[in-house]
């Protein structure tokens, strides 16, 4: 795994205007799905992105691939700024970066055969024609563990796990460098999840892929990732090597998240002390001032109200957490933008 950064985001924002009508009053009428994310994904690594519903992880994944327009900040891929990319260049990006979607039943066009679905990238980018195309489709199906003979079938004839493999084959057809797995195993049965996780790991090693593995399932993320990033309400609140974040989280939200994951070991379950968070996640249209986690944090104290914490190095090498418990660093609400309070 080289140290070269393949995908990078700086101050990335994805804001959606809200109508203002309805039950949730949006004070400034904006839903901050992704609210200022700095991220570097190193070539060849698997970065796990975890968080609960509404944290913006799916939106972030889609934004990195330019499938959802960003409203602020910048994204770069392979050293090139892709934030405003259009036309032919954007199409080239589509070949180099792909996505595996969550719902295996919805992500395949029910009126197209497996062969047609898997060969779509080849046709769109003019990569193979005729017999070569069919050969490549067969090759891809074998790569994901399916019998090439099923190429003429329709999606409804397959199980969820098999459809997901077809989706992976399609994503790999253009020989991409970067793959985003957006809750790729969430809709599958437990035993099938294991099969797909193994498959993704094998493919990554074999093809030298860079993976962004988005999931709410911490165990799966820990299993497959080299590094883990934790998101809450549109921000990355902790990031670091998988082991470090998994065993010694530095941010209270990560700690609570880990303690909430039920483990299949009755003895451990009885003995563990669970951090139970109070209340619900605030709406992304009404993000709390200062630290956005302060409304539920068991360790909330003075600076949390006012200063929006920035990621700072803490814990193991490469680990960062956005929490004032390690020193007050960030953007105060009362100070002009960009001024950092003295730690």
């Amino acid at each position, binding site marked *: 795994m080289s140290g070269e950064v393949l995908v990078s985001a700086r101050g990335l924002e994805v804001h959606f205007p809200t109508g203002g009508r309805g039950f949730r009053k949006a004070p400034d009428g904006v839903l901050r799905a992704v609210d200022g994310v700095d991220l570097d994904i190193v070539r060849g690594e698997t970065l796990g992105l975890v968080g609960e519903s509404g944290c913006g992880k799916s939106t972030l994944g889609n934004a990195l691939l330019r499938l959802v327009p960003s409203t602020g900040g910048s994204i770069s891929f392979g050293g090139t700024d892709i934030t405003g990319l259009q036309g032919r260049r954007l199409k080239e990006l589509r070949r180099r970066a792909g996505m595996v979607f969550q719902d295996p039943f919805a992500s395949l066009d029910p009126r197209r055969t497996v062969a047609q679905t898997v060969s779509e990238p080849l046709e769109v980018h003019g990569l193979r024609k005729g017999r070569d195309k069919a050969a490549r489709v067969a090759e891809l199906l074998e790569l994901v563990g399916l019998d090439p003979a099923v190429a003429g079938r329709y999606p409804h004839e397959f199980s969820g796990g098999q459809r997901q493999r077809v989706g992976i084959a399609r994503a790999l057809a253009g020989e991409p460098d970067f793959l985003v797995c957006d809750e790729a195993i969430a809709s599958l*049965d437990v035993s099938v999840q294991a099969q797909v996780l193994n498959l993704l790991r094998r493919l990554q090693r074999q093809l030298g892929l860079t993976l962004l593995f988005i999931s709410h399932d911490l165990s799966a993320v*820990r*299993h497959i990732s080299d590094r883990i990033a934790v998101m809450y309400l549109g921000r990355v609140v902790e990031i670091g090597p998988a082991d470090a974040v998994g065993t010694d989280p530095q941010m209270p939200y990560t700690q609570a998240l880990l303690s909430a994951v039920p483990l299949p070991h009755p003895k451990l*379950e009885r003995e563990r002390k*669970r951090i139970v968070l109070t209340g619900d996640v605030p709406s992304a249209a009404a993000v709390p001032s200062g630290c956005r986690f302060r409304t539920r944090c068991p360790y909330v104290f003075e600076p949390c109200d006012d200063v929006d914490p920035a990621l700072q190095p803490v814990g193991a090498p490469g680990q960062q957490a956005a929490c004032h418990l390690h020193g007050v660093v960030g953007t105060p609400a009362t100070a002009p933008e960009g001024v950092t309070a003295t730690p």
Partner: protein
Amino acid sequence: MTGTTATPVLEVEDLRVRLRTPRGPAHVVNGLSYSVGAGETVAVVGESGSGKSVSVLALLGLLPARVATVTGRALLQGEDLLAMAPERLRQVRGPGAGMVFQDPMTSLNPVLSIGRQLVEGIRAHTDMDKAAARRRAADLLGEVGLPDPAGTLDRYPHELSGGMRQRVIIAIALSNSPALLIADEATTALDVTVQAQIIDLVEGLQAERGMGVVWITHDLGVVAGIADRVLVMYGGRCVEDGTVDDVLERPSHPYTRGLLGALPDLAQPAVDGVVPDLATVPGVPPAPTDLPEGCVFWPRCPVRGDARCETEQPPLAVIGSADVALPHRAATWCTEGGAR
């Protein structure tokens, strides 16, 4: 098999459910037997198609009679649910057993306020007037931990978050103080932190009221945290049961072992710095219209340690000591170390 010496709240005996399908009869539940004592939590574990959900729907008479044939006995506090007249069954559903389903959004009527839905359930089983029922409803909402009980009564489901909705559903299930609570994948659709809250809530309420709880899930982690007893279902049968420690720490049936092995282990992902591949169970579960003759797991079993596996169905038999209150049982010809 009883876990406690007192009369069990629920006693299921040889439950079988056959569904009529265009493809022929589907044997969705095949001979399920278990009991739930007061204050006890029994977890029924299985993947999709194992029959776990259908089994509880059958218990409460929620399967359409046209297509479902249900046999066996299910004694709720001594009365057989499956032999009840429809009118009696309706009376029993609130106060006898409360049910919580998976999807909080579709379990609540989107056009009725929370208050109305609660009051409807309360007034169906008691003769309280509207005002008294409303007060009771507000009390219940407080009990399930909702921050503004009186205000919530007038809100609509879409105004609440998933966790809050699930709490409302639990309140509805508890509104007539049932002796038994059935939760079918009640936390699957919720975030993990919210799941922890709901599990805590149910455990607390159970301790307070001495209810029996049947918790259906595919998540073995949840099972480890909440269950006293576990039943593993596959192909409509119980393939293993026992205390939660027995089944999860010393799994005996190859399917249970496969299921546990397929879980990424958050507690110990790496062995000597290397994350091993997850052990998988290849293939897919059998279709209920086409069950194998012998052991129901035989087509996918990596062990196959006995000649009888293919042709003879193994009975649920005791493994280990038979003297304990709750013996560990498995339906397999092959235990650890080969054939029995």
